[in-house]
């Protein structure tokens, strides 16, 4: 099924992610648009890593190298802060025998995975079994972690009862917030990953007493986050994570059949279908021919797929840096937000929350934009 065309700066960014050697041929103007797009997409640090690995960095103009270096430094700082926080949190929770599963970027960093390099770390994401949540919370609060004082009782309840995480926790000694999850999707959602399986198959991270999801679950987590639980806005970098995970594990014996089976088990086959589709189209992710076939049973109808293509193109792919998002992008955001809300909660719950929260806020979650600047 052919895709609608991408804008020039998006084409350039996607091309450079796949073929960093092409960097040698770009003009100053092309670099200007590229650096700005990549920064907006939170991929400037990743670009720096790939260009360095391809050996083309010395060929680039000095100002470009400096912007790449700057992005690399901020990424390195946040990665260090994430690992430092994990270290301190582990010291509080592991001795109590609470199983601690690292999620997303936090896991990639602790595992030394390829997709951790150059990544923009925003929060520390951990998952623990629901029965141990209250105890973990109590220990963390006693150790200097605290909730945002401006958190309203409504928001607090939203998190605890209807979401899969506690409200974000903060600590004066750590610049990043802590998100403590007990599942990878909201318990009210239409897809219900099997939390017991996630914990049962989690793998230890060498030398740390901590766990990470099994590779198939890490893949499905990204797919779930983007396609089951978000409005997809600005989520190209999640697809880049997904691409990296699939390239890392795709060669392992039995990976692809196991992935498909697991997707069915968690009810995430549709999300995986989308993940594979957009990764292969935009990032050239290699996958065996029968990989998509294995989740074809969960594929949307042609019309739906076309609509999703058009929406994601406008919401997920960065737009022209010299223009503000146009009408198309804004409409796409609204539709995808509606979709996210629909997937997140049954209609009666939707009505309840609609009374309290704005429509877009529901799709984006209750938390305000994380205020972490480059400090």
């Amino acid at each position, binding site marked *: 099924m052919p895709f609608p065309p991408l804008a020039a700066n998006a084409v350039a960014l996607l091309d450079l992610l796949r073929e960093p050697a092409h960097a040698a041929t770009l003009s*100053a*103007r092309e*670099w*200007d648009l590229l*650096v*700005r*797009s990549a*920064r*907006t997409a939170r991929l400037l640090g990743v670009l720096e890593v790939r260009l360095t690995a391809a050996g083309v960095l010395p060929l680039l*103009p000095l*100002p*470009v190298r*400096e*912007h790449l*270096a*700057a*992005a690399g*430094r*901020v990424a*390195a*700082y946040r990665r*260090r802060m994430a690992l430092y926080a994990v270290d301190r949190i582990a010291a509080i929770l592991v001795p109590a025998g609470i199983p601690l599963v690292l999620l997303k970027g936090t896991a990639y960093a602790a595992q030394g995975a390829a997709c951790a390099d150059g990544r923009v770390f925003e929060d520390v994401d951990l998952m623990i079994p629901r029965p141990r949540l209250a105890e973990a919370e109590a220990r963390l609060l006693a150790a200097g972690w605290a909730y945002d004082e401006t958190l309203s009782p409504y928001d607090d309840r939203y998190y605890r009862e209807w979401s899969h995480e506690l409200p974000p926790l903060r600590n004066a000694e750590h*610049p990043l917030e802590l998100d403590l999850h007990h599942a990878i999707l909201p318990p009210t959602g239409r897809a219900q990953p099997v939390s017991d399986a996630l914990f049962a198959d989690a793998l230890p991270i060498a030398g740390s007493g901590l766990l990470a999801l099994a590779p198939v679950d890490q893949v499905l987590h990204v797919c779930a986050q983007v396609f089951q639980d978000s409005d997809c806005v600005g989520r190209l970098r999640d697809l880049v994570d997904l691409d990296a995970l699939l390239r890392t594990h795709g060669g392992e014996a039995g990976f692809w059949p196991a992935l498909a089976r697991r997707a069915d088990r968690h009810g995430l086959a549709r999300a995986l279908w989308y993940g594979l589709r957009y990764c292969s189209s935009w990032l050239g992710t290699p996958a065996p021919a029968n990989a998509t076939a294995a989740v074809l049973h969960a594929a949307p109808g042609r019309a739906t797929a076309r609509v999703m293509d058009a929406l994601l193109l406008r919401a997920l792919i*960065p*737009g*022209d*840096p*010299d*223009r*503000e*998002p146009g009408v198309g992008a804004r409409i796409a955001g609204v539709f995808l937000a509606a979709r996210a809300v629909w997937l997140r909660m049954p209609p009666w719950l939707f009505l309840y929350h609609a009374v309290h929260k704005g429509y877009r806020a529901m799709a984006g979650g209750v938390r305000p934009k994380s205020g972490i*600047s*480059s*400090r």
Partner: protein
Amino acid sequence: MKVAEVGEGGLREYLAQPGLALDFGAARARIRTDLPALAAAVGSVYSNFDVEPAEGFFDVTASVRRARGPRRVLRPQIQFVADGALPFEPFPAATHLPFLEWGLNWSIAERCNQHLLLHAGVVALGDAAVVLPALPGSGKSTLTAALAVSGFRLLSDEFGVVRLADSLLLPMVRPVALKNASIGVLRALAPAATIGPVFAGTRKGDVAHLAPDAASFASRHAPARARLVVFPRYATGSATRLEPLARSRAFAKLSANSFNYEVLGADAFDAVARLIEACDCYRLEYSRLPEAIAEVERLARRAPSA
């Protein structure tokens, strides 16, 4: 061609597509706006800057445009736009230049993390630079401006840009923001200096900007070695008092007053250590600006050149 030589109409054209290109030294910016009043203000405070071609690679591209919506006529507002995003709430249209300057500061701080960015004014006599950290109540901008019109060249008012490899200070030449009484004080001190329009009723009171002079602009790519760190403190009616400050304390205060010291880790530590080791550090309490200038000048002349 200098910005001052471009007529108002010409300036407005530049500030439309593709933008007015300005070289601050450590960063190059491309600015766009559709507000004629802002165009005139930019023309005033950047009068000594060269007009550069707006094609190519820029460190910051930003625009200030009229906000859309019903308030447009009743109480017009403006938006700061960078790379397709609106990082701030709208401002009243009457505060256009402070808003642009503030937005540019934010954009630079977000992007320029290849250097250590101190929150400090920096001026230089010859190749010897004086770093004036911006603790609250310091009157840093007033003193920086006063030194800039008294024979020192201006490297920066807001950002002390420290190159990590060698701790040299890089110019980031921008208009110096003056508040309230400082505006009149600077006018009296340097009647020939260009000070831009006064913006009343901002969050910080009245604000006006001292335009960097031609010499400071011409030296925007000339780094300087820090020889003095002076922590100013303006206290009404106080005598002028200079006190040496222990280097360890200067290190601590300098690193606490930076935009990205923590982010740069060990490299920032090394850069500040290297910078401080070459400097004499002082606290300067003052109320009479000419005396403060004289003290700094005396110290600067005594300091070894780079």
